[in-house]
Structures are given as C-alpha cells and as structure tokens.
C-alpha cells in the first residue's frame, strides 16, 4: 500500500506553495489555452509565447490541487527556453512516466504519436526530467494521474495551436 510520502514529496509541496511562472501573458501574441479536469473541476490556463521555434515565455493560471498545481509549476520551469521539439519530447517523456495504467486509453494530447516515439522520448539521453521525477509517485495513486497530466495536455494543445497558426 503506497504511503502519502510517495505522493507528497517535499519538492512537490514547495512548487505548490511557491508556484513558478504564475500569471498571464498578453494574448496575442501569446497563445492562451484552457485545460479542465471534468472529474474534479481543476482548471489550468496556460499562456505560451513561442518565438523562433523556442518557448520564449510561459505563464500559468487557474486553480487546482497540489498535484495539478505543482506539476504545472514544474512544467513551466522545465520548458522555458526550450525548443518546441525539446518540449514535445519532454511532454512524451512525462506522459510516459505517468502512463503506466492508461497508456493507450487516454485518447488525448499525445494520441497521434506512435508508441515507439513515446518510448524513445522516455529513454532519450537529453531528456532529464529532473525535478519532475518527484511526480513519479503519482502513478501509485491512479485517480491522481489526471491531476498531474492536466497542464501537460494543455501544453500539448497549445503547441498544436501554435503550429496550426504558423
């Protein structure tokens, strides 16, 4: 039986209490995308500013539990300054870490990507999940996986919209 210490790691609580990159960006030029967890009412508002194929800035709004908020905070810190390709790889790596139970049933965000890509992303040497590793324990609490992935799915959607908008 997993204990709470697997879920509420100190670094998670730190990001929850002191969220990074909290706020808004003028949209446009930034892309504003909302994500909802219909089961619990958590919501994330993501502002993404992509310039020259690179995440120039990202801000996070919305509200939710410690897992969804800390995941969003860590995500924002991890993707800022990265190229779009790196960010997409990071999304795949993160979702692979979270996808033990729901890998092929999710039908969201990363759905169109192949399994082999996902696995390659997870194992890529350049992809250090770093602080994000702290969220690994969430998979022991399957109900909370959607909390952790909410902001990541929203980010994937924002990237798609950026790409579609050219």
């Amino acid at each position: 039986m997993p204990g709470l210490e697997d879920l509420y790691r100190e670094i998670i609580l730190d990001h929850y209490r002191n969220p990074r990159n909290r706020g808004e960006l003028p949209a446009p030029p930034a892309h504003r995308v909302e994500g909802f967890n219909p089961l619990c009412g958590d919501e994330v508002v993501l502002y993404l500013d992509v310039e020259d194929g690179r995440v120039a800035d990202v801000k996070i709004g919305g509200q939710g539990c410690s897992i969804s908020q800390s995941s969003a905070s860590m995500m924002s810190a991890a993707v800022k300054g990265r190229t779009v390709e790196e960010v997409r790889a990071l999304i795949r790596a993160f979702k692979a870490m979270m996808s033990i139970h729901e890998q092929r049933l999710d039908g969201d965000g990363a759905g169109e990507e192949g399994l082999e890509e996902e696995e390659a992303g997870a194992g890529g040497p350049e992809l250090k999940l770093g602080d994000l590793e702290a969220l690994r324990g969430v998979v022991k609490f399957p109900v909370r996986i959607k909390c952790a992935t909410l902001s990541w799915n929203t980010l994937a959607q924002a990237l798609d919209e950026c790409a579609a908008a050219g």
Partner: protein
Amino acid sequence: MTLDVERIKKDFAILDRRVHGHRLVFLDSAASSQRPQAVTDAMTTYYETTHANVHRGVYTLAEEATARYEGARARIARWVGAGASHEILFAKNVTESLNLVAQSWGRANLRAGDVVLLTEMEHHANLVPWLMLKDQLGIELRYLGVTDDGLLDLSDLEEKVDGVKLVGVTAVSNVLGTINPVRRIADAAHAAGAVVLVDGTQLTPHMATHVHSLGADLYGFTGHKMLGPTGVGVLWGREEILEAMPPFLGGGDMIRDVRLDGFTPNELPWKFEAGTPPIAEVIGLEAAVDYLEGLGLEAVREHERSLTRYALRTLTQRYGDEITIHGPPDADLRSGVMSFLFRDIHPHDLSQVLDQRAVCVRAGHHCAKPLMRRMGVSATARASWYVYNDEGDIDALADALADAADLFS
C-alpha cells in the same frame, strides 16, 4: 425512536473492512450508500431460485419472477404514496428517469420559446437534460437563485414562475444538504399552470416521501443511495401526465403491437420500460425499502439530524475559522450532507490524506458546477452520513483533518 447503530453496522459487512490498517469510516453515502445483507440476500436468492425474464414466459419461474418484479413495484408505489403501482416506472438510474421526463414530456409539451424554471442548486442530472432540450427545441431556461446561506432564493418566485411550463427542483441539495421548501414552490408552480418535477434523489433515502404532500407531479429517485443496488432508478408520475406522454425508449415490452409501418405502445407502466428491466435490482430495492421501513424513516431522519448537529458543533469548535462549512447553519434545514473547505487545502488533497485513515469523503464539484460557481469555489470536500454512521465517525473525520493540517502546514 433512536437507531441502534451498533446493531445496524452488523448488517453491513463492508464496514468490517480495514483500509490502510484503520476501520472503514464511510462518509460518502450521498454519492452511493452501502447496502445491508438483506438486500444482497434478496438479489442472490432471486437469482438462485426464481430468475426468468418477466412479462414473457408462461412457465412457473417466469410467472414467479413477474410477480416478484410487479410486487416490488406495488411496494415501492405504496412507500412513496403513489396512487397506483402503474405510476411507478423503473429506469437504470435517476439520471435516466429525469432524461425520460425531458425527452418524453418535454418534447410533447414544449415549443421554442417555452420556459422551464430550474434552480441554481440542481445536480447536472436535472440540468443537462433541459440544456439539451434548449439546444434541440429552443426552449428558455430560468433559474431560482441560491442565497449566501445556501437556501433557495424565493424572493422572486412568483415573478419567475409566471408563464413557465415546468418547474424542476431538487428536494435536497446533494452539495449543501439544504432541504428545499418543495411544497411552497410546487404551489406557486401549480398556480401558474406549470408541471412540477422533483428530483428526490437526496430526500427519499433519508426521510419519509409522500409525493402528493410535496406537491410533485413527477418525482425521481435512485436505488443505490438508499441502501439498494446500483442499476435501478425510479420515476413516479401522476397517471394522467404519464398517460399523455409518448414512449421514451423503444423496444420489447413497451409495445402492444408492432407492424412494419408503425407500433402501438403498451399501457402504463410498461410503455416506459423498453427491454428487459433490472429485475434483480428492483427486488433488491424492495428489500432496501423493507429495511428502511424496519428502521423507521422518522428515526432515520432524527439520527441524521442529530449527527449533523454533532458534526457542525464538533468541527467548528475544534477548527474555528480554519473550516468553512457551506450551506444553512441550522441542522433542521439540512440533511446529512456537509460540504466544507479546510484551511486552504484543496479538497482532493484533503480527501487523499483522509483516506490514509480510511475516512472516505468525496472531493470535487459533486456534479453541480453552476452551484459551485455561485459559491465561488471550484471544489469542496463533502462528508455525508447515513444509518450506519455514528459520532465516532465524525470524530474520526475531525482527527484525520489534523493530519492534513500537519502535512500542508
């Protein structure tokens, strides 16, 4: 007239379970109650001795199964004060019951521009079917508001009910526990010529139901929140209203005749029961009615009111400003449902920490997002109690809250 909770607990085997090494403290009966041995026994016995499809065969088993099924209908009809057993329709849950009303009564009686009056307090099950009709028919929806104390705002009732075709109201809020003055609303609705639909999901398990005293024309409730099985919901309707409604789902059992160019619907109640019904579930529901009647609904209500008083007192004395309890402060106006916020801890996190002590509470929007917006919150934690809960369970909740306070301090 008090409940012997120690004896009642023995009827619920699940309460012997231990979770994370603690005895189970089940405080989520508003989502789904547990069920006593008598209910599962009734269903098992039915399957082991009597099962055959109803209304079809002429052999002994089929006749017995039909008699059991229709006998349960009659029992449930009497229990809610229906005029006749054919005024009771079975569906798969109360959500389907309410959808039946919207799609059958609504499509037959509403045109573009007609108005349906609901409340801001409704469960999604009594909102979305009408929002769907808004899209499908162009009807207009109006809402009775909710006061800061979690009561329905009736100050503009007469104004809002004017010209309305149907009023839909929940008898008891599944979020706040507020017991609504259904009769007063029904009287105003009838004076305005409207039909009254009552969502009794959170009332029928906890206090005596008399559909006529409430002033309802249509009344829905569900089995699994009243010690019965999942998979069965009930709709009661006044005979003349049900008679005038077209069928909802089509299929076997709901027809008198089928030709290649049309069909003739069956009579009540089978007109609304397409396909093989939830026979064992209906028999289980009858056993739940027997069990509740054995306890006495007045005793059940008094027990829950007493626990509500105890919970309000215990939690506010112990945690003061750290806890915000939503809904009316007066236990007489509440059922055994309590939504609360504790410190600034998100309800999901709270529920997760409470689970470590086997304290089961619901966290989220409770399928009432408009009400949550009205309350200015995105989620609450919700504890709810029933016949098998006691003050020790409230104490366990209060103790477990301290764990959450420690972790998130």
